[in-house]
């Protein structure tokens, strides 16, 4: 479990990015921090691996105050995936994935073998192993980034808008991969996004933030959709709600569900309907 206790962060230039933030992040599930730009999501995420140290308060992992843990050691047991992959451009895919295991003394052959397995895990063809990052598509680079994040078999995986820069189709694919990985690996994932749809899709628990890292609401997608805590939330999830609020329309003898934008979302399966059988 990751626990933020009354954490604040004031940067050297005086910006108060996070103001008195407290949160418990349960293990083996996905917690999504969502909020508009500048709400402090990245700052909060980077406090977990000490890329940012809080100016007040503490962050604990499994009861241990991480301020007492050496940053390099801490970071090597936490996976980190960022928006523009952050891969090392001068290293081949396989060496990028194997970077941290190699640093911690895993022999090259073993690290490479493991890296190839991880390529399978994230759905990358092994034939890409000897390419350099700039010979991959954006989506492939992000998969390599995820594989690298998993290379040390961390309990915690931090993901900062990992799919922010890929096109919608690839993004949807990658989101499904994250769901699958989570089902198979059961990591504690802390995922940052400003896309509420992505948050609803991926999050077992969603933390809605506004400026200063102030929590507006936490809950499951269903809870937030059903009962937005205030107008801010209602507005933030508004688009999603509009899309998700379905109503029935009858076309012939079929009942079609139409969303708030007038797009057909599906056909209501009548009892004994031919669709369901097969």
């Amino acid at each position: 479990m990751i626990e933020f206790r009354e954490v604040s962060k004031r940067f050297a230039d005086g910006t108060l990015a996070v103001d008195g933030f407290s949160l418990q992040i349960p293990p083996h599930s996905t917690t999504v921090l969502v909020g508009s730009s500048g709400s402090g999501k990245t700052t909060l995420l980077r406090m977990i691996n000490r890329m940012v140290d809080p100016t007040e308060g503490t962050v604990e992992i499994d009861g241990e105050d991480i301020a007492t843990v050496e940053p390099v050691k801490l970071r090597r047991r936490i996976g980190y995936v960022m928006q523009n992959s952050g891969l090392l451009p001068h290293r081949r895919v396989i060496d990028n994935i194997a970077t941290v295991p190699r640093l911690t003394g895993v022999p090259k052959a073993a690290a490479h073998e493991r890296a190839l397995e991880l390529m399978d895990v994230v759905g990358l063809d092994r034939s890409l192993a000897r390419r350099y990052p700039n010979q991959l598509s954006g989506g492939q680079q992000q998969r390599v980034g995820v594989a690298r994040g998993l290379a040390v078999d961390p309990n915690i995986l931090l993901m900062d808008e990992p799919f922010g820069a890929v096109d919608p189709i690839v993004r949807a694919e990658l989101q499904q991969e994250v769901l699958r990985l989570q089902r198979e690996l059961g990591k504690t994932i802390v995922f940052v996004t400003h896309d509420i749809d992505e948050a609803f899709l991926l999050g077992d628990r969603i933390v809605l933030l506004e400026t200063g890292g102030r929590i507006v609401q936490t809950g499951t997608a269903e809870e937030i959709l059903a009962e937005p805590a205030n107008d801010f939330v209602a507005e933030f999830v508004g688009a999603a709600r509009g899309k998700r609020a379905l109503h029935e329309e009858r076309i012939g003898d079929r009942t079609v569900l139409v969303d708030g934008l007038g797009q057909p979302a599906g056909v209501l399966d009548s009892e004994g309907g031919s669709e369901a059988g097969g």
Partner: protein
Amino acid sequence: MDLIGATLAWIAGFVGSGELWQRLGEHLTYTFGSVLIALVIAVPIGYLIGHTGKGRELAVGITGAARALPSFGLMLLLVSLVGVVQRPIAAYAAFVILAVPSILAGAYSGIQAIDKTTVDAARAIGMTEWQILWKVEAPLGLRLLVGGIRSATLQVVATVTLAAYINLGGLGYPLLQAIPLRRDEQAFGAAIIVIVLALLLDAAFGLIGVLLDRLIPTGAAPRRPRRPRAVPTRRARMVEAPTAS
């Protein structure tokens, strides 16, 4: 009016007598000796500045001032300071001061030109500062560092010609000897040899640059292979470009 013929004849004699090799040896010893000393001084400082991002203004100021110093005057001044017996030290000092600014600039600009997110990610996955420096910043900054070494070497190789003024030999020796004696063919011949040497060194550094481009992709220019596994080089891209359009 056979200056060209006379010059070629002088060069032939200079090469034939073996004096070329002696003077070239002296010249290259001074050149590479001072560039090496400058590397030892400038690279650690440049890396420190590049890695920490601190002290850049100071470095720019000092290197600017060092560049403005006239090497010849500096050399003579240093000779008068350290004494005639120690004049190789004076010469080395002047050449090192000449070489340091370019190498320093190459070292720190090479690191500063690296995408900040690359370095940030390296830190976030758990590299130590040393590992970031040696495994990320040094290789990715090498191309610009070599560029700095290249210009330092070219400046020094030209300036070492002046070492002959304080009787230290080098390829400047036959040149300076020729001028008061009005031996034009010798002056020309010696000058040509210095120029050829500079061009050869420049070409050698160009070659190193091409090799580095092949060995260390920096991610500066996105590139896609036509075939999997192939690692395209800059040359390959240039060749491909016209057919693609």
